[in-house]
């Protein structure tokens, strides 16, 4: 059994090595064929060919060399076309002069824009590839994606031989899952914030400075809290790792962070991975694989393999089985397959379960959603699939989400349906114990998540205002800028890089706990009006702390359980792990209306019940918290 596990692990590491190495296994030659197959716009194609000059037909030894050579070419092409169309930024002319455009060609069809450059760079890098990989991409697919999954399964399946039960042995002794010290955590956070600022320094100077200031304040505040408590900097925090740093965890975190940075900001360097996925993508949607297909495929596959791990680990617990099955299903069907099929049917791409404001760009292209030129009117509903989607999206947010949250708590979404939650519950499960349980963390959590919620609402309001009035400037802000700030800071940096990259550093629900505006919204419903709560079982709690330790949302469940108080918390995603790990059967996730307005009042462990605190000489003065 041990042997099979080790072979599985070895195969996984081998596959991962091949996967990463495959990025370097191409040479690149841009031929006219490649150019014409990937750039249909004749003005762009001709300009690029002209700007490329000698570089056409030249062989580059690596994608890095190719990108270094062609990024300037594409940027120069953009400049040249701008110049030709009469754009003159120095003199305040931002748009093309109609006279200078070829007869009957619109500005958008003539000029290149920064996103056009990015798309072309990606396509040209991908299809100019030669060498070992392109001809053998199926083999590489088998040796990386498939072999990794098989290796993973070989590592996981032998656990079926163990007696079913809670299997957390040596989690805090393993360098993969023991987490990091408080200082290391702050270094990572600080570095991430700084890096994100550097990346957008010129574009978003103002917000960059604000973030630096905010980051410094946060770090200083936490430092000061620790100093004031007069205890050494590392020892006060529950995240202190017991024996040295979890180096495998840190490496994994860095790997994930690099993956996300590349995926979001430098996708042209990972075109080789998409080459391997072309056959699958074409069979699903009819299109070649782009970076988002790569991401969706990887995401689904990882969730599947790690979902199987979860199913094995909790096979004695039906709640976990049903819930894990559910997130695996919604990811595979709703997030991955259905949108691809929609593309095949020439319909807008839509993930039907992704609710605004988590789906923050839902309102970005209202036109596209309900069909170009169609007025948002009853007549359009029946005719346009896009209109139906648009209406569904609104119904989902305004009706389905609050209604279901009232009935079942936010768990129906966060740990049964959501893709982010799904990854956290599968890939992230080995790291759930690393969430910070301190009261301080809870304070930050409330400010940050509700801050993001407000940001999302304001941003979307501005987008809709711009759509309705055609004016993009509101007060002193430009709605397009606000939109891209949100996309960069919340959409990319927070939910992607910190949200997933920080699994091994700060636990698996960093995004869900501190950032997700939808979770923030549902949390308000859950806190103030919901049938959901975690009940505690009379006086059975022994304060052992398993529940708090394994709460991925950093709720100090024990604080409630040992007082015999039901847990009603905005952040609880109802994963049910606290109830699963409890050795004394103290916690149960329950729904009920009978006591909906006083779900938290009773303290069941208070033993002496008949005495009033305030009779005669006996008054409550001590006021313990």
């Amino acid at each position, binding site marked *: 059994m041990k042997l099979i596990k080790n072979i599985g692990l070895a195969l996984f590491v081998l596959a991962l090595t091949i996967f990463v190495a495959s990025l370097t296994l191409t040479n690149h030659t841009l031929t006219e064929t490649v150019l014409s197959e990937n750039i249909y716009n004749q003005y762009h194609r001709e300009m690029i060919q002209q700007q490329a000059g000698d570089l056409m037909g030249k062989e580059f030894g690596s994608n890095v060399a190719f990108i270094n050579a062609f990024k300037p070419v594409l940027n120069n092409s953009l400049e040249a076309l701008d110049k030709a169309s009469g754009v003159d930024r120095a003199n305040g002319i931002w748009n093309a002069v109609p006279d200078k455009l070829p007869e009957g060609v619109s500005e958008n069809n003539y000029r290149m824009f920064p996103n056009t450059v990015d798309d072309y760079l990606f396509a040209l890098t991908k299809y100019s590839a030669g060498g070992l990989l392109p001809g053998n991409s199926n083999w590489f697919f088998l040796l990386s994606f498939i072999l990794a999954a098989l290796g993973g399964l070989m590592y996981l399946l032998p656990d079926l031989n163990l*007696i079913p*039960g*809670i299997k*957390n*042995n*040596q*989690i*805090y002794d*393993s360098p993969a899952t023991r987490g990091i010290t408080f200082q290391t955590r702050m270094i990572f956070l600080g570095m991430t914030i700084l890096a994100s600022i550097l990346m957008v320094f010129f574009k978003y100077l103002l917000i960059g400075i604000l973030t630096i200031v905010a980051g410094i304040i946060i770090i200083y505040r936490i430092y000061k809290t620790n100093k004031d*408590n007069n*205890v050494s900097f590392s020892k*006060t*925090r*529950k995240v*202190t790792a*017991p024996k040295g740093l979890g180096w495998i965890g840190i490496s994994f975190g860095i790997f994930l962070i690099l993956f996300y940075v590349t995926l979001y900001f430098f996708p042209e360097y990972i075109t080789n991975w998409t080459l391997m996925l072309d056959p699958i993508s074409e069979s699903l949607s009819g299109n070649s694989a782009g970076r988002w297909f790569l991401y969706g495929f990887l995401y689904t596959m990882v969730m599947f393999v790690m979902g199987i791990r979860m199913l094995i680990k909790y096979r*004695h*617990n*039906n*709640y976990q089985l049903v819930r894990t099955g559910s997130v695996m299903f919604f990811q595979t069907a709703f997030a991955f397959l259905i949108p691809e099929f929609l593309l095949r049917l020439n319909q807008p791409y839509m993930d039907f379960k992704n609710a605004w404001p988590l789906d923050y760009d839902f309102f970005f292209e209202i036109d596209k959603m309900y069909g170009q030129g169609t007025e948002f009117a009853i007549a359009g509903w029946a005719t346009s699939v896009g209109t139906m989607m648009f209406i569904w999206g609104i119904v989902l947010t305004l009706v389905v989400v609050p209604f279901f949250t009232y009935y079942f708590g936010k768990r129906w979404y966060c740990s049964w349906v959501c893709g982010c939650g799904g990854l956290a519950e599968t890939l992230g499960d080995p790291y759930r114990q690393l969430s910070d*349980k*301190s*009261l301080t963390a809870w304070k930050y959590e409330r400010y940050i998540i509700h801050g993001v919620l407000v940001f999302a609402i304001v941003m979307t309001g501005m987008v809709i205002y711009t759509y309705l009035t055609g004016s993009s400037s509101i007060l002193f802000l430009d709605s397009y800028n606000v939109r891209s700030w949100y996309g960069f800071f919340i959409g990319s940096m927070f939910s992607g890089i910190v949200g997933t990259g920080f699994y091994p550093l700060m636990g698996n629900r960093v995004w869900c706990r501190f950032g997700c505006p939808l979770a923030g919204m549902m949390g308000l419903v859950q806190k103030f009006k919901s049938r959901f709560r975690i*009940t505690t*079982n*009379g*006086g*059975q709690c*022994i*304060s*052992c*702390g*398993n529940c*708090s*330790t394994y709460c991925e949302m950093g709720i100090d469940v024990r*604080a409630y359980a040992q007082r015999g108080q039901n847990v009603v918390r905005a952040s609880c995603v109802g994963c*049910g792990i606290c109830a699963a790990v409890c*050795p*004394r*059967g103290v916690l*149960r996730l*329950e*729904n*009920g209306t*009978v*006591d909906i307005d006083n779900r938290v009042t009773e303290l069941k*462990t*208070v*033993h*002496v019940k008949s*005495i009033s*605190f305030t009779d005669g*000489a*006996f008054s*409550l*003065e*001590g*006021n*313990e*918290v």
Partner: protein
Amino acid sequence: MHIAIIGNGISGITAARYIRKFSDHQITVISSESDHFFSRTALMYIYMGHMRFEDTKPYEDWFWEKNRIDLKKGFVEKVNHQDNELLFVGGEKMKYDKLILATGSASNKFGWPGQDLEAVHGMYSLQDLEAMEKYSDGLKRAVIVGGGLIGIEMAEMFHSRNIPVTFLVRETDFWNGVIPLEEAKMVGRHILENHIDLQLQTELKEIVDDGNGKACAVITSKGERIECGFVGLTAGVHPNIDFLKESGIEIQRGIMVNDFLETNISNIYAIGDCAQMQNPKPGRRPVEAIWYTGRMMGETVAYNVCGKKVGYDPGIWFNSAKFFEIEYQVYGTVMAKMADDHEAIYWKHTDGRKSIRVIYDKNTDEIVGFNLMGVRFRHEVCEKWLKEKTNVEVVLQDLAIANFDPEFYKTHEHEVLKIYNQKSGKNLKPKKKRGWTQAFKFLQS
């Protein structure tokens, strides 16, 4: 008023918290074991790598200062009640106005040869845990002596690190002095399926010295010699009161206390494992080394210390534990050997890791107790049934509202009822469903 509390376990800390709720008295909690309160019951999870020591602290470190509960690390050597003074090792002294003794337990040692050798430890304190950790590196086998809750926890701890364990149990079945035979056998089978070398009806005769003062083997009552690098002594605990022997405070097995948890000295109280009730409630033992009774005593003593006389009443008996993967809960009276006028309905799952036992009085049909293995029941619901001496048929028909297993778990209450129907020739039908709504309505009724 200065209230000193010796012991920062669940009893002492509960007392301190409630005294703080009720009053502004100065409170000092004294411990030589740890700086802060931690959950003793979670020590095993530290060893098993499920938790860090920090995670076992129920309150964050700022809690104590914020609530003006002074913590003092030190070992009290002597209580001088004439002068209301504590004497610490090292000569330091502390005055008090009222003293609460919550000193807990110490592991039993029955005079075995070699019991004080190195690598021979109980499993009670943080220091015991450190000792286990110290000897675990490269450990080839551990021998555990004594088949109780701590013994099986220790077995699980070593098992989690793949260290082979020999488990010596004096009785014919594991813990059969406390739980009924079927359940004892179930746990026994479960111990074996975890590859623990369980040796029933076997006692420790001698621990062998390796020549350097360290244990290297044990010799059992059957004459077998078992080589091992660690010996765990888990044959129960006794009140940790050695330092009080000459103090004038009345002690027998534990510190003698009346219903108000007062000792023979008027301003000294004793609670938790170390206290011995002069008049235990019917069916209860004078010394109960249980987490829950410690907590109840802590709360009760706080009233008495603050000037409000409240008698200690532990109420309906309940307890719980976990044997490897099998959870155990008990409510009411469940004896190893059932009383003659009691009758049991016993249902067992085919997987051999779950059972429900409902005990009632044959003559009056009143419910008497519940014993659960691998199934969770709702404390308050069982307690209400037991308090009200509900008719067993009502209980069995409504049994689902007691179920506390997670959602989507199969329920087995109807099978329990079926067994009763077979036994009685009746045809009762389940009346209620699992879930909070019905349970809440019942509790409110």
